């Protein structure tokens, strides 16, 4: 279990990483493992040890780098991946989570220039307004486990992110001709967003009346012949479904700050690249602490998981005829992690309208709002509706002149209805793409 240790005089002493703790029995001294460092007051400033310039985490260098003198310090962390610690829903954690951050604002002391900085709750990093040095602070949580312990570092550099976003913006026939992606995307902000991951094992039990189709023959007295018809036999059945939920991601950001639909679109993240949290990764980048508490996020996760369980139960039923369906889903071995994931955010203006764009800092997947040349959309809609209108016009004309346009009118109505449906679908798609209307 532990290696016994004796000092040079032969006397016993506890292992190095053990400290004396309270004993409830006189005559018995107890040593326990030293708790992990909380770094409560350890706010790190990032300035170059060579030239004193501001330094930041550099994606291509894979460490903290100085853009002026070329100084690079690798981050002392290793990839842990899915082996990263997971936490149980202990009653203490749940209770502490419900209390939230519990701190309105924090005052940080800048080690670089001695200035006093005030940071808003939920921000893990800031830049000193006096000396411009980057500051990283993760001490705003009261509870050790509710601090980010792991993160996925940025893999996409700002330049690559800009290019990927420009490519995405440049695609599509409905793009306005005036839109020059390289011109509008001046600045991408790299930010670590908070996420909760959840694991659990589900044992779902369902019970329902399941219908089986069968063909029965009967005699039709009126027709004086034997006929067949389909009949459904209903039987009560039940079943069990087991499945595991692994790293279900729920955002810890408020929907007022980030559009959650766009966050969904840039998933997935590769959890195999999780690393232990090191402030160096955050140097020069923005990072946000969770706004959605663990319990709120878990409620969201449970809603998703139980729907997955319901779908799994329905898939377990051999037919699609189901009624009086009921089920229970037993959650077991529930665990969670609080992690930071890399995202690039950009807000650009086109024709005085702001547009938001979001990019996965690990995979480069892009989602967001896109300007649309609406005259092109209306042109396509007109093209879709015109065959029906033309046919209808021709039909009406023929009816008036030769009393022979009924067929053309009917075809025209059908073509118009089809055009109308396609136009509505196109309109919905474009408005979603633009993200401005509806």
């Amino acid at each position, binding site marked *: 279990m532990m290696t016994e240790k004796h000092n040079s005089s032969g006397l016993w002493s506890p292992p190095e990483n053990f400290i004396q703790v309270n004993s409830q*029995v006189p005559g*018995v001294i107890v040593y*326990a493992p030293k708790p992990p460092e909380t770094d409560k007051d350890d706010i790190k400033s990032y300035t170059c040890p060579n030239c004193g310039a501001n330094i930041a985490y550099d994606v291509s260098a894979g460490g903290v780098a100085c853009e002026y003198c070329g100084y690079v310090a690798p981050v002392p962390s290793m990839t842990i991946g899915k082996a990263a610690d997971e936490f149980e829903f202990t*009653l203490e954690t749940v209770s502490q989570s419900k209390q939230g951050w519990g701190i309105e604002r924090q005052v940080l002391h800048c080690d670089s220039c001695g200035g006093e900085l005030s940071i808003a709750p939920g921000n893990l990093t800031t830049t000193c307004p006096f000396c411009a040095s980057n500051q990283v602070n993760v001490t705003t949580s009261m509870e050790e486990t509710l601090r980010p312990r792991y993160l996925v570092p940025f893999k996409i550099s700002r330049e690559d992110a800009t290019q990927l976003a420009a490519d995405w913006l440049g695609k599509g026939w409905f793009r306005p001709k005036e839109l020059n992606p390289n011109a509008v995307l001046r600045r991408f902000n790299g930010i670590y967003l908070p996420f909760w991951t959840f694991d659990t094992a589900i044992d779902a039990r369902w019970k329902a009346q399941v219908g089986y189709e069968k063909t029965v023959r009967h005699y039709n007295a009126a027709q004086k012949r034997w006929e067949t018809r389909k009949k459904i036999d209903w039987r009560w059945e039940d079943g069990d479904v087991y499945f595991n939920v692994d790293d279900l991601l729920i955002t810890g950001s408020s929907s007022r700050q980030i559009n959650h639909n766009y966050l969904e679109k840039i998933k997935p993240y590769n959890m195999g690249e999780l690393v232990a949290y090191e402030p160096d990764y955050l140097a020069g980048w923005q990072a946000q602490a969770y706004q959605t508490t663990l319990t709120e996020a878990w409620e969201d996760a449970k809603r998703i998981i*139980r729907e997955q369980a319901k779908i799994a139960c329905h898939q377990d039923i051999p037919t699609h005829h189901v009624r009086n369906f009921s089920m229970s889903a*037993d*959650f077991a071995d*529930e665990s969670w992690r609080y992690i930071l994931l890399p995202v690039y955010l950009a807000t650009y203006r086109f024709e005085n309208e702001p547009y938001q764009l979001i990019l996965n800092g690990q995979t480069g997947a892009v989602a967001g709002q896109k300007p649309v040349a609406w005259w092109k959309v209306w042109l396509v809609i007109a093209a879709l509706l015109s065959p029906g209108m033309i046919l209808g016009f021709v039909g009406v004309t023929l009816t008036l002149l030769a009393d022979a346009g009924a067929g053309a009118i009917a075809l025209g109505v059908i073509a118009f209805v089809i055009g109308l449906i396609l136009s509505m679908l196109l309109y919905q798609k474009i408005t979603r793409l633009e993200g401005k209307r509806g």
Partner: protein
Amino acid sequence: MSDNHETIIVEENQALWGTARQPAGCPHCKRVFLIKESAMGGICPLCYQAPLESQPALLRPKEPELLIPFNINKKQLQSLVDQFVSGVWIKPPDFQSDNLMQRMTPIYWPMWLVDCDVDGHWQMETGFDYQVESTKEYFSGGEWRSSKQIEDRIRWEPRVGQMQSHFANIPTPALENHQTRVRQTGPYPLNQAEPFANRNLGHSVIEVPDLTPDNAWPLAQPQAAKRAADLCAEAAGAGHGRNFALNAVYNGKNWTQLLLPMLTSYYLDEQGNPQVVIINSESKSIFGPRLASQKRGLRIAGIIAAIAGVLLAIALFSLILSALVPALRQVAAFVSVLGIGVGVTAIIPAVWPWQWNRQQGKPARMHGNLDT
């Protein structure tokens, strides 16, 4: 209590502990006792196989410090023995409660209690109870319902430390067959021990320790370590402990001899071998084999078989006569069926003692239902 645990050889015919009892041994089971001179030559109260003979004994000259007095009256004893005997159907002739009562012998048997100081260092895994919240979701009538469940779990953490503690009254065997004896008698309420006094001995026989304190200490040490483990877990504020390791020196050992009361008796089985019965006068439990008599079972079976034979003979005779008197054919049929039925029942007394005695291979302690 005494820290003097030296042993000496006590010569035969030498009274000891101021009890007017002399050492005597059983040549069959090799047990040594202190008995009154008048009991010399009497049968061994443990094996009931050979008479006790005067012999020297190796024991501590100092008298025992503690004793648990007998706590059972004759009525309770009779009731206990009656219950013990009554459960057996085909008993050996000697297996009667009167015989057991007449042969009852009170014995005090020894054990050690040792005090010691423990000074050393330890390590263990300590377990702390905690609770987690789990979920169960129900879907019925198009709606979801959620219920929370609380589960108890143990978190294991390493702890090390030092201890300087005093452990008192660690129960330690004074007999080599201590475990067997405890299995036979069951536990004793050690907190009811009283200072040793001659007046409590009465006519009882005292069994002499065959483990000296020095020999008994290796058996006491695991008990001390177990106490140390419990103490260390308590010191760490843990509810559970495992993988305890202690590196310690044990000083200031202080040995106390405690005498425990029991009653023995015996009955003769059908081969004439004595079957020993042991009674714990504190817990009112009785232990011993309750053997049935195979010979008597076979004898009863033989009688039943003979009756069956007679019935079959009558049936055969009736069958022959039925040639003359046809009505006798029905009588023959009825009597033959009756004869076969009676013959089959003869198997029961033949087999039952064998089956019963097989179950008595590992006799269990029996607790009496007594009116106190």
